């Protein structure tokens, strides 16, 4: 079989439901500056973005995987067949500018709407969608911290997508530990001379555009050691003249492209800066505050990578579902005349598919809720409302990044499982999703880094106030539903209350033990993150179920869609939420055992 394109149908109805009923699209559209985001406009935009995802980006997913990005003899990274035209379609459509300042060519639409568009693009073609994602991140950083001169020169073309952006952080010795950053920047008149080597640079080089704007972390000569001595620079691949035209090539060289487990279509570059004295770079903001600025991009990227977890799971689910309806193996238990004999009717295949569906809806609820909170945190007229939203975003970012990517990976694996042996065969296409998903728990901070962030910055720093506040809110919803007339809602509510109880015990344990031995919460952190993710997912499914029940009671005729919500929530409540008890036990009782063996014992009798 050749590289057959696997279809992707954007789940517009699900997206619209979550936008309207869980994320509060109407409230976001009511924020100052978002007047254009009316319901019919949102429909038009989502409809057109869906066409692009389905017809342009999705058919290139397999081609990108098979051909990959390659470095040619001239040292230029070449993207796969059709990628240049696809990028051009996004540029001509103005899609990169969706959330940005209209004064610089953006459309001034909410981050929430951008999030929905990004979901479809990541589902259609994750390796491709990384490019717009990183370009948007780079625009954010320049927009927030760059001088007016930098903004005027670079932003219009980065917003339009005529130029793309990258994030240059990692060096061979500086991965999760950025204190080890060695790249240098030396003042030279109105600019700096930047030198050093950066690795793992996504879309660090490519042939989609004439120029690439690198955002690079480097040290000034007099910088203090550690993370407090890192500054952020704009280093263009091709120098830009004062009138915006392109000048000479800058000293930025793509040394090689990595050979990877997945996202083959995305060029992952090793970049060498300043091989002949120094690449021309421009300081962003103030000296030595680069890490802080980079975290603006990083937090944007973390929520986007979390989205990749959802997106890849959705793609894998669609494919698994289509296969399960088509594939016949024996007669399903309890089969009756007229029913399909597809393996979809075998209970365990159904369990896998329900597990995918429920978790996908849970992830979408979390991510769109967080995206709406980003808009509120930036645009609400009331300072207190902005502050509350910002705290929610801060808390949800590591949970979303950690849980949605780990879950996305698990679901991509379940997608392979539904296919049986055919899933292990590359031509089927199910395996690509699993390989592509594998990076999401690693880049932009591994799951462990997210878990550290959750424990140290989001729980310990405020004594658990924000986390417990959210858990109380979830428990209140659970309590309300546990008295509902509908059985599915009742079960969901009761299980949610129980799960919150487990989460609160785990949080209390972290708060109590952190002072005794910092290694204890660290050893428990990933399990705690998973526990918080599972509870947050249950919260969203319960919210969806409640809204659906209300709409049905009001006589909404879309019964097939709406009545599925409480049933899906009950599945999650009975299959996923009970695992929180085991997770709490692991956090509270198991942390000491993680470090119990000596390093020598770990190496054993070899």
């Amino acid at each position, binding site marked *: 079989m050749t590289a057959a394109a696997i279809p992707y149908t954007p789940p517009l109805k699900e997206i619209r439901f979550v936008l309207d009923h869980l994320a509060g699209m109407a409230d976001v559209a009511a924020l100052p500056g978002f007047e254009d985001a009316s319901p*019919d406009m949102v429909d038009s935009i989502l409809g*057109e973005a869906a066409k692009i995802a389905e017809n342009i980006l999705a058919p290139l997913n397999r081609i990108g995987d098979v051909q990959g990005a390659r470095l040619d003899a001239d040292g230029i990274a070449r993207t796969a067949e059709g990628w240049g035209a696809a990028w051009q379609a996004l540029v001509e459509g103005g*899609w990169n500018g969706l959330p940005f300042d209209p004064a610089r060519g953006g459309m001034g639409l909410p981050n929430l709407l951008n999030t929905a568009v990004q979901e479809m693009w990541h589902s259609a073609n994750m390796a491709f969608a990384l490019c717009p994602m990183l370009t948007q991140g780079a625009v954010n950083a320049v927009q927030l911290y760059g001088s007016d001169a930098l903004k005027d020169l670079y932003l219009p073309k980065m917003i339009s997508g005529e130029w793309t952006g990258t994030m240059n952080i990692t060096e061979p010795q500086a991965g999760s530990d950025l204190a080890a950053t060695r790249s240098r920047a030396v003042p030279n008149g109105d600019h700096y001379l930047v030198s050093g080597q950066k690795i793992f640079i996504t879309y660090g080089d490519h042939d989609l555009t004439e120029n690439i704007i690198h955002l690079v972390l480097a040290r000034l000569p007099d910088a203090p050691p550690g993370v407090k001595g890192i500054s952020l620079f704009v280093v263009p691949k091709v120098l830009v003249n004062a009138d915006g035209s392109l000048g000479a090539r800058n000293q930025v060289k793509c040394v090689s492209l990595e050979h990877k487990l997945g996202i083959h279509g995305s060029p992952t570059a090793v970049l060498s800066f300043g091989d002949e004295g120094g690449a021309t770079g421009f300081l962003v903001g103030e000296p030595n505050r680069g890490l802080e600025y980079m975290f603006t991009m990083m937090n944007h990227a973390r929520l986007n990578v979390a989205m990749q977890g959802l997106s890849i799971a959705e793609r894998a689910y669609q494919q698994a579902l289509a296969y399960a309806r088509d594939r016949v193996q024996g007669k399903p238990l309890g089969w009756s005349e007229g029913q399909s004999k597809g393996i979809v009717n075998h209970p365990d295949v159904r369990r896998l598919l329900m597990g995918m569906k429920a978790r996908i809806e849970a992830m979408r609820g979390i991510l769109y809720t967080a995206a709406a909170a980003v808009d509120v945190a930036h645009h609400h007229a009331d300072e207190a409302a902005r502050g509350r939203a910002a705290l929610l975003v801060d808390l949800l970012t590591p949970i979303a990044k950690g849980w949605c990517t780990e879950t996305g990976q698990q679901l991509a694996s379940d997608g392979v499982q539904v296919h049986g042996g055919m899933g292990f065969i590359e031509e089927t296409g199910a395996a690509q999703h699993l390989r592509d998903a594998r990076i999401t728990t690693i880049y932009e901070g591994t799951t462990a880094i997210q878990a550290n962030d959750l424990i140290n910055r989001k729980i310990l720093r405020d004594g658990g106030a924000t986390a417990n506040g959210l858990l109380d809110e979830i428990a209140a919803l659970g309590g309300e539903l546990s008295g509902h007339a509908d059985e599915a809602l009742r079960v969901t509510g009761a299980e949610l209350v129980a799960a919150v109880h487990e989460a609160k015990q785990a949080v209390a344990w972290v708060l109590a033990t952190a002072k005794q031995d910092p290694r204890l919460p660290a050893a428990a952190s990933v399990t705690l993150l998973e526990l918080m993710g599972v509870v947050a997912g249950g919260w969203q499914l319960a919210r969806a179920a409640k809204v659906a029940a209300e709409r049905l009671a009001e006589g909404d*005729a879309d019964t097939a869609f709406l009545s599925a919500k409480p049933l899906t929530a009950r599945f999650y409540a009975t299959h996923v939420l009970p695992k929180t008890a085991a997770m709490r036990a692991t956090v509270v009782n198991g942390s000491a055992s993680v470090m119990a063996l000596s390093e020598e014992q770990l190496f054993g009798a070899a």
Partner: protein
Amino acid sequence: MKILCAVKRVVDYNVKIRVKTDQSGVETSNVKFSMNPFDEIAVEEAVRLKEAGAATEIVVVSIGPAQAQETLRTALAMGADRAILVQTDVETQPLAVAKVLKALVEKEAPGMVILGKQAIDDDCNQTGQMLAALLGWGQGTFASKVVAADGKVAVTREIDGGLETVELKLPAVVTADLRLNEPRYASLPNIMKAKKKPLETITPDALGVDVTPRLKTVKVAEPAKRQAGIKVPDVATLVDKLKNEARVI
């Protein structure tokens, strides 16, 4: 030259059509609607004629329910200049639509009317032809190529035996076939601009047209399920069945 372009809101081509349980029609509640694909091709052609300098204004019109505004906005986002919704909740049948279009043509005085060759819901393939007859204009149906110049339009038509090119004196009616062009994706700025373009809503009554359906739908049913095949014992039985049951030889 002004172009009048007619578009219909239909059940999206991706939707699996289901017949209503009372067999009065097809299920349309909670179903995705979009612009009739052939009309989308017609809009694209109008926009290309304008971009090529052969047209100066594109007026897009739809006859149907209030929701057809969305369809008109889509056409505006593709590049039409203004829109007219002739709002009615009755089932729109070709003759009534042709009469409404004729009334609009008399009001707007376009140099060309372009529309899809048929709508994918009822597949009538009549409106364009009826409109040309009512107006006494030339018609170029099933167009796969349209070249307008010097008060004339050359329309290459897809016919059974291949392609036929007719030259029509303008004004004329053109109906778009599948291979005429590939409709563009609307850009984000144009989607947003479309909301600010004028969209006028009028009624058939205001145009003096009676759109009451003249045809009555008796019954709508799913196509008959294919019967399972049978094995025949020998060639003689096969020939006999082909001759006497199937009557094909």
